[in-house]
């Protein structure tokens, strides 16, 4: 189609009728100032062509002129397939539409709306929205020229149809795109953009249904299980009740209890009677036993009296021999005591002999010690004498170590002075052949002779020549003076040491060292003697000890008798020892004998005393017994007692027989306790059984109530139904999940194949774009992506520039160029759609805008291009048909 004219009224700033006419076939330019209504006209054209006349959309309301109550009236004239059409629509008020062809109305209102769409090749998506297809792509409203063209569904289809026509049906891009759209729409029913089940979608609903039914099923099964347990419990309770409520058992227990109570009563009475009889029997038995004890006591007492009397007689007989024996023992004791006294005297004599022998032995020993003391005294006196001599010699020997060191220092100094003198002196050297008669200080020189001239030297050569070499006078005198002083100090040292020369001084020093050595030896000997108080004190102590021994010897020999020899003393000691041994044995025997006699005597006395005690005790007891049982009443008392005993024993036998008789009839041991325990048990059992029955009754009623509540609502049916429902829900969920997976697989597979074909699909657009692009960007290439998106611009460099990083002006220019290319592509395939640019290229510089004008004019060669702009001066060079609003 080609636009021919546009008329508006009540539209935006055009409250009054306004018209643009004279649209040409190529480039058309409407240049007007801002707010002249260019964009209003653009919107008016779109509204007239693409909106239903009956629409009350906000955009249409926004078109109405403020302050006027006029309808929005728009007329658009256009040429299509060689015929001229005019569509006139009134919006908002007096709504109407009229389509004329060559001046003849061919459709009205809705029909007019739709016939226009049919002619333009677009179709409404719904009653409200219209996909403007390529018109939406090529009619760029103000501010949208910067946007990358995003073809609508219909536009994409149209572009793909064009591409398909160009590259043939082999690519199948449009079919794939449409199929992908269908698949994505279908997937969109199930999933969100992020791939999760979509709320309200069938998959989400299936999942929720499954979860809900699963919960219900679990709840129902839980209730069913609870009911099952209650029924089981009820069965158990009823079984318990039947057992507990068995009347036979209860009657048996009652009968058993009554019987047991009766037996217990009888047993208790019999037991009581028996206990009483046993007590009587015991009492009678005790009386009889007491009487028997009394009789026994009387008999015992009588026998005791008799026995005591016999014993007294025996004691008298036993005392006589003891007295005789005591007399004999006393005599023997006196004899042995006398013998012991004699032995004691002998012992004392031996003690005196021992003491004398000790004295003699001591004297002999001390005399032997005196010899030793004398020898030690002599040794010490000699040592003291040697020490005194050595000390005197040491005092005389004055050359000590310091003197020797002083001597050595002086000798060294002398050598040093001489060496210095020698070194400072001139040297005379002579080399003479043997026999030449050369002499040095008188000595013949043969070969080489040299000497330091420290004093005048005479050299003769033969007899005729005498050469005297004299050292410098000043030097010689200084050296001599130093040597002289040194010799004076040496002499003084020798004199102080008492030595004539150095050799003697050293000899005297050697002698002193010898004396010092001797002094150390003497000291070592003294130390070896270990003298605590020194030699002199030891000598004095030895002298005192010897004097003391001598004094003792004199004192022990006052009797004047000669000292016995050691052998004699030993013989006497031996004899004394033998005698003492014999004497000790005899004394021990005597002492033992004395002790034995004393002990025998003591025993005899004790025995006699014991017999006397017994006798006294018997007499005492006998008196008491006789007081209780006098001899004259003994027989009568015994007879009386025996008679009483007989009476009591007869009474006991009667009682015992009665007890035995009763015991035969009485219950066995523990029988009463067993009966009482049984009665207690039966009472408790009957009571417990009654309580159990009551509790069971209450519990059964309670559980029955619970069962009635839980079981009457068809719980089992509900659980079975829910089980089926759950299986179905899970199956449905699985089916839908699998359906989603199938769709995803299909989408992915087609997507992948589509991507592989993208270059092929984009080739037609790239071919159409190339001349437009090179008008502005010579040699550049555009990289196209999914759905004709502009990915980048490849100019001179090896890598493409990312579209979004280009300047805004460049982005807009490329976006416009792509739209021009799309328009050219669509146009070439027979769909003649005008291109409208409303206020585009606002950021283009002067050079670039001229290049863009070239591109726009290139487009204008094949299709109508309408440019709306407020930049009259800048767009002057665009050329084309100039339009005016009238």
């Amino acid at each position, binding site marked *: 189609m080609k636009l021919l004219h546009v008329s508006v009224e009540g539209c935006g700033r055009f409250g009054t009728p306004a018209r643009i006419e004279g649209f040409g076939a190529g480039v058309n330019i409407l240049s007007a100032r801002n707010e002249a209504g260019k964009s209003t006209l653009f919107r008016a054209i779109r509204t007239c062509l693409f909106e239903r006349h009956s629409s009350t959309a906000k955009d249409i309301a926004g078109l109405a002129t403020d302050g006027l109550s006029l309808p929005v009236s728009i007329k658009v004239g256009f040429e299509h397939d060689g015929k001229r059409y005019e569509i006139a629509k009134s919006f908002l008020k007096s709504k109407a539409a009229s389509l004329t062809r060559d001046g003849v109305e061919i459709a009205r209102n809705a029909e007019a709306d739709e016939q226009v769409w049919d002619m333009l090749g677009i179709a409404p998506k719904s009653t409200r929205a219209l996909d403007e297809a390529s018109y939406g792509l090529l009619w760029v409203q103000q501010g949208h020229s910067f946007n990358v063209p995003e073809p609508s569904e219909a536009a994409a289809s149209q572009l793909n149809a064009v591409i398909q026509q160009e590259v043939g049906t082999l*690519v199948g891009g449009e*079919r794939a795109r449409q*199929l992908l759209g*269908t698949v994505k729409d279908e997937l969109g029913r199930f999933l969100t953009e992020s791939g999760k089940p979509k709320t309200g979608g069938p998959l989400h609903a299936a999942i929720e249904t499954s979860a809900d039914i699963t919960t219900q099923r679990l709840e129902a099964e839980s209730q069913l299980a609870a009911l099952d347990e209650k029924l089981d419990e009820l*069965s158990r309770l009823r079984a318990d009740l039947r057992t507990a409520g068995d009347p036979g058992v209860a009657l048996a227990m009652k009968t058993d209890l009554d019987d047991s109570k009766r037996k217990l009563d009888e047993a208790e009475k019999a037991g009581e009677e028996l206990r009483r009889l046993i007590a009587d029997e015991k009492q009678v038995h005790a009386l009889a036993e007491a009487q028997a004890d009394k009789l026994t006591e009387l008999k015992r007492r009588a026998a005791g009296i008799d026995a005591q009397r016999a014993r007294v007689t025996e004691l008298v007989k036993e005392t006589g021999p003891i007295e005789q024996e005591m007399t004999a023992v006393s005599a023997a004791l006196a004899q042995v005591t006398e013998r012991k006294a004699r032995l004691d005297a002998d012992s004392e004599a031996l003690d005196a002999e021992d003491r004398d022998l000790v004295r003699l032995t001591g004297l002999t020993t001390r005399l032997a010690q005196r010899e030793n003391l004398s020898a030690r005294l002599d040794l010490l006196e000699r040592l003291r004498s040697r020490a005194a001599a050595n000390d005197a010699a040491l005092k005389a020997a004055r050359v000590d170590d310091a003197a020797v060191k002083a001597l050595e220092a002086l000798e060294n100094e002398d050598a040093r002075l001489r060496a210095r003198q020698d070194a400072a002196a001139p040297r005379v050297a002579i080399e003479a052949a043997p026999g030449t008669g050369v002499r040095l200080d008188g000595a013949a020189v043969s070969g080489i002779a040299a000497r330091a001239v420290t004093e005048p030297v005479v050299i003769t050569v033969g007899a005729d020549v005498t050469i005297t070499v004299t050292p410098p006078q000043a030097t010689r005198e200084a050296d001599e003076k130093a040597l002289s002083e040194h010799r004076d100090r040496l002499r003084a040292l020798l004199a102080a040491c008492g030595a004539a020369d150095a050799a003697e001084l050293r000899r005297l020093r050697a002698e002193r060292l010898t004396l010092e050595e001797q002094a150390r030896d003497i000291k070592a000997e003294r130390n070896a003697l270990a003298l605590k108080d020194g030699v002199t004190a030891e000598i004095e102590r030895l002298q005192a000890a010897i004097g003391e021994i001598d004094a003792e010897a004199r004192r022990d020999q006052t009797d004047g008798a000669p000292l016995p020899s050691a052998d004699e003393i030993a013989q006497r000691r031996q004899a004394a020892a033998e005698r003492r041994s014999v004497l000790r044995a005899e004394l021990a025997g005597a002492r033992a004998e004395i002790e034995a006699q004393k002990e025998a005597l003591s025993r005899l006395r004790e025995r006699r005393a014991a017999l006397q005690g017994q006798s006294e005790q018997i007499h005492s007891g006998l008196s008491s017994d006789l007081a209780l049982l006098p001899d004259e009443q003994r027989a009568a008392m015994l007879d009386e007692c025996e008679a009483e005993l007989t009476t009591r024993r007869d009474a006991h036998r009667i009682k015992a027989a009665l007890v035995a008789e009763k015991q035969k009839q009485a219950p066995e041991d523990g029988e009463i306790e067993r009966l009482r325990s049984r009665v207690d048990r039966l009472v408790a059992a009957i009571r417990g059984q009654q309580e159990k029955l009551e509790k069971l009754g209450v519990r059964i009623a309670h559980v029955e109530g619970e*069962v009635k509540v839980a079981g*009457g609502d*068809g719980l089992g049916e509900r659980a079975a139904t829910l089980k089926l429902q759950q299986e179905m829900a899970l199956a449905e969920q699985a089916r839908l999940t699998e359906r989603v997976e199938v*769709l995803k697989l299909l989408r992915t597979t087609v997507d992948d194949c589509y991507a592989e074909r993208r270059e092929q699909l984009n080739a037609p657009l790239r071919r159409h774009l190339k001349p437009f692009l090179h008008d502005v960007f010579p040699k550049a290439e555009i990289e196209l992506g999914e759905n004709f998106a502009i990915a980048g611009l490849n100019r001179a460099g090896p890598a493409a520039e990312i579209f979004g990083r280009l300047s805004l002006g460049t982005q807009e220019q490329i976006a416009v160029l792509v739209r021009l290319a799309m328009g050219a592509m669509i146009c070439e395939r027979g769909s003649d759609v005008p291109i409208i640019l409303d206020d585009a290229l606002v950021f283009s510089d002067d050079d670039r805008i001229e290049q863009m004008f070239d591109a726009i004019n290139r487009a204008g060669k094949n299709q109508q291009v309408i440019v709306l702009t407020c930049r009259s001066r800048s767009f002057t060079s665009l050329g084309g048909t100039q339009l005016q609003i009238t």
Partner: protein
Amino acid sequence: MRFIHTADWQIGKPFRNFGEKESVLRQARLSAIEAIGRLAQAEGAAHVLVAGDLYDNEAPSQKTLLEPLERMRNFSAVAWHVIPGNHDHHRGNGLWDRAATLGLPPNVHLHLTPEPASLGENAVLLPAPLRRKSEVNDLTDWMDSAASAAGQIRIGLAHGSVQGFDSAGEANNPIAADRAKRAGLDYLALGDWHRTLQIGPATWYAGTPEADRFNSQEVGQVLMVDIAAAGAPAKVTAHRTGAYRWLSQAEDLSNATDIDSLEARLRALPDLTSLLMRLDLRGTLDLTARADLARRLGGLEAAMFWLAPNLADLHVRPTLADLEKIDFDGVLREAAEKLRQQAENPAASPAEQRRAEEALVQLYLLTRDSRGEAA
């Protein structure tokens, strides 16, 4: 003596998986009772022995509980003898107590204890009611020692699995295979096995009077039993009582001809409107045939009471023509080729292969839809 032997009514069984048909199937089970009653009246059978599982579960709703009882009440000339089975075993305050509390019809006789019950002057019934869902003991043991008058026909009534018989009974409630012989029974009426089955000369499973599952009894029936006198052989005749036929069928398909044949055979089946069919399809079809099969199954599904096709083992392999119908070349053709390769890829799991097949079918159908062709 003439009586009807039936079992496994399982009243209240849910058929929720049959959607809106559920109520019809539930109602059919109740209608079967009426069919039995009519049969008894028509054939002069004074007694109907129900060998357990009258109800599907032991906690039915009150309506479910009463519905069969009321239907039995309507046949007052017929004595219905019922024992509990494993699905509706008896226990205190259980469903049988509930039924008794609600009021049993006078012609319905519950046998809740193993005690002889008179079936007139000439016969005695020896019931073996279940008191648990699963009994480990043979509850028919007592029949061996059960006394009966000389010349009386002895009839056992039990529910469980016959030992030694390859039974697929639902519960472990053993019954000796030679019980009839050991107990001197003239007939042992059994329940639990949903197919009519003769175990011995005088031992039968009646099957269910209204079929309720696939791969089991196709049509519900009961047994009419005639016994001339004690010791005489039982004459057993099956009578159809079920309204619906449950048919399971497996078919191999490989081409359009097979589909034609299958459809023709299925449409030739009698009473399609009362037919429930599980159809297991196997084999491999091309895409065109597969799409055609889907269309035809849709028709058959509408023709039958219920059709449950199982296509899990039916595979799709596109022919060149199929692929060309998707496209001669281009994106969709390449996608179809990729999916075909994936479906035939031996390295892929069966699930992945199946998914690729289905994606291929979808691709085929969508491309046909886009052309406006009927899928």
